[in-house]
C-alpha cells in the first residue's frame, strides 16, 4: 500500500459520505470536501451531480486550483435560485465545515461570543438553516478540539440539529438528516440514542481517549470501532493526478502530516 497523507485519508473518508447516494446534488464547500465529492463522483457515485463551483453543472468534476486551459464539460446550469429549488425538494447532500458544532449537531458559522457585539463576526448563517432542515448534511472538521466541538450549544445556532427543545412542537422536523462527521482524528455519525454523536472509526494511530479529551461533550462509542479505511491506490492516483494535480491538499493540515504515523 502506498504512503498517504492525513489529508488524503480524510478525503477518502469524506468521499464515503456519498457512497449510498444516488442522483443528488453534492454541495461541497471547501477544498477537502470538493476533492472528496469529486473522488466519489469519479468512482463509486457516478449519479452525483456537481457544479464548476459557480454556475454550470459538469459531467466530470473540475480539477481544483489553476485550470491551465482545462475546460469544464457542461451539461446544464445551477444558478443560485435553482439551488434553492433543489434545497427545498431535498435531493442534495451538503459537506461543510462549521466553526463550532455541538452535541445536537447544531453548527455555527455566524458569530463567536455574545450575539449583539460578537467577539468574532464570521460569515453569517448563509444557507445553513435551509440546508440543514431540508437536505442531508455531513461535516469535515480539520481541527478536532473542544473549541470546535463545544460544551453546551454553539454560540449562534446557524443550522438545525437534533435538539427537540428548539422546535415549536418538540418534534424533530421530517427532513432533518445529519449523516457523518470526518475530523483530523476520527469519523463519527449520529447513530447513538436520540441521534447522539458516535465514534465509528479512528484514524491510524489515534486512541479513543484522545478524541474524547478533544470533544466538549460526551461521545457514544460504537460497538466495534474500526480503523478508518486507508485510501486505495486507485483513489490516490485519481486524487493526485486528476482532481488535485497542484497538490493543494497539502495545505489542509499544517505540515501535511502522514495518514499513518511512521
Amino acid at each position: 500500500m502506498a504512503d498517504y497523507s492525513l489529508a488524503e485519508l480524510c478525503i477518502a473518508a469524506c468521499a464515503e459520505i456519498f457512497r449510498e447516494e444516488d442522483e443528488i446534488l453534492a454541495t461541497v464547500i471547501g477544498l477537502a470536501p470538493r476533492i472528496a465529492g469529486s473522488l466519489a463522483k469519479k468512482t463509486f457515485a457516478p449519479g452525483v451531480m456537481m457544479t464548476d463551483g459557480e454556475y454550470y453543472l459538469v459531467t466530470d468534476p473540475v480539477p481544483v486550483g489553476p485550470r491551465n486551459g482545462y475546460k469544464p464539460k457542461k451539461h446544464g446550469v445551477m444558478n443560485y435560485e435553482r439551488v434553492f429549488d433543489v434545497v427545498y425538494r431535498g435531493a442534495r447532500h451538503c459537506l461543510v465545515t462549521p466553526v463550532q458544532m455541538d452535541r445536537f449537531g447544531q453548527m455555527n458559522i455566524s458569530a463567536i461570543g455574545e450575539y449583539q457585539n460578537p467577539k468574532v463576526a464570521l460569515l453569517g448563517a448563509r444557507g445553513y438553516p435551509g440546508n440543514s432542515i431540508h437536505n442531508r448534511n455531513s461535516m469535515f472538521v480539520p481541527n478536532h478540539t473542544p473549541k470546535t466541538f463545544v460544551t453546551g450549544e454553539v454560540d449562534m445556532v446557524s443550522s438545525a440539529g437534533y435538539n427537540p427543545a428548539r422546535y415549536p412542537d418538540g418534534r424533530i422536523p421530517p427532513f432533518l438528516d445529519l449523516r457523518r462527521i470526518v475530523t483530523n482524528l476520527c469519523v463519527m455519525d449520529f447513530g447513538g440514542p436520540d441521534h447522539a454523536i458516535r465514534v465509528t472509526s479512528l484514524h491510524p494511530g489515534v486512541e479513543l481517549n484522545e478524541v474524547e479529551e478533544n470533544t466538549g461533550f460526551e461521545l457514544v462509542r460504537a460497538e466495534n470501532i474500526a480503523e478508518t479505511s486507508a485510501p486505495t491506490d486507485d483513489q490516490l492516483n485519481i486524487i493526485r493526478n486528476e482532481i488535485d494535480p497542484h497538490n493543494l491538499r497539502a495545505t489542509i493540515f499544517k505540515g501535511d502530516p502522514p495518514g499513518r504515523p511512521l
Partner: protein
Amino acid sequence: MTALNKSMTVADIVGRLQNGMTLGIGGWGARRKPMAAIREILRSDLKDLTIISYGGCDVGMLASAGKIRKLIFGFVSLDVIPLEAHYRRARQAGEFEVMEIDEGMLQLGLKAAAQRVPFLPTYVGLGTDILTHNPDIKTIKSPYGDETLVAMPALKPDVAICHVNKADAEGNSWIAGPDPFFDEWFCRAAGEAYLTCEELVDTKEFDDETIAMRMPIERSSVKGVAAAKFGAHPTSCSPGYGIDVAHLKDYSKAAGEGWSAYLDAFVIGLTDDQYCDKVGGAAAINALPLPVF
C-alpha cells in the same frame, strides 16, 4: 407613441434615496455589485439606511461609512476573501442592528414582497437562532395539517439598485455573466428599482434569441437607468472583468483607521473616469481574470 426615456445619472439615482430608507442591493458577495452607486452614496449625506443584500464590499463600505442603521442579510463575504473586514469590524462593535436570516429566507422575503403577500411559509429557520434573534419572525400552523412553519415576512425595499452589463433607455437590461443572482427579485420587490450598466445601448442590440434569454428584469419594474462603465469594480462583472483581488486586499486592510485614507484615494471627489484611472485604468480592469471557484 412616445419613446420611454428612463436614462439618468448615477447621482440622479442616489438622489432618489432618502434618510431612513430601505435599500435592496443586487449582486452577490464580490460579484456584480452596483459599486459606482455605492460610492455615490458614500459621497452623500445619506444616513440611517436599512440594507438588504447578499453582502460583499457594498455592505462593508456602507458599514465603514456609518450609513447603515439595520442590515438584513444572510452573509457578508468577498468570495475570494471569505471574511469581509469592514463588516466584521462594524458588526463586532455593534454599530448597526441586524436581521440575520438564511439566504433562501431572504429570497422568500423578496418574493413575498413581489407577490404582495405578507409572508411565505417555509421550514427554513426552525430550530435555529435565526428565530431567537428575530422575534418579529413568527411561526404559523398549517391550515391543512399539523405542521408548524416559519412565516417569512415580506422584505420590501423602498429602492433597489442593481448593476447589469447592458441596458437601454427604456429599462430593458442584459445580464451577460452566468448567474443573474436575485436581481430580478430585488427589482420586483422594490417600490422603485434602478439599474446601472456597463453600457447604455440601443434597444435593437437585444434583438437576439440568446441575449433575450438572459434578460430577467422586467423593464416595468425599472424606474431609471444610468451608464456606469466599470461600475461593479472592485467586484466582478462577467464576462468583462473579474474580481480585483489585489484591490480588495488593500481595501480589507483599510478597515478601521485606514478607512478615511481609502475614501480620499478612491471615492471622495472622483468621477467614474478618475476612479478608473486610480485603480489602474480601463486596460487593467478589462484584464482582471474571471474568478475560478
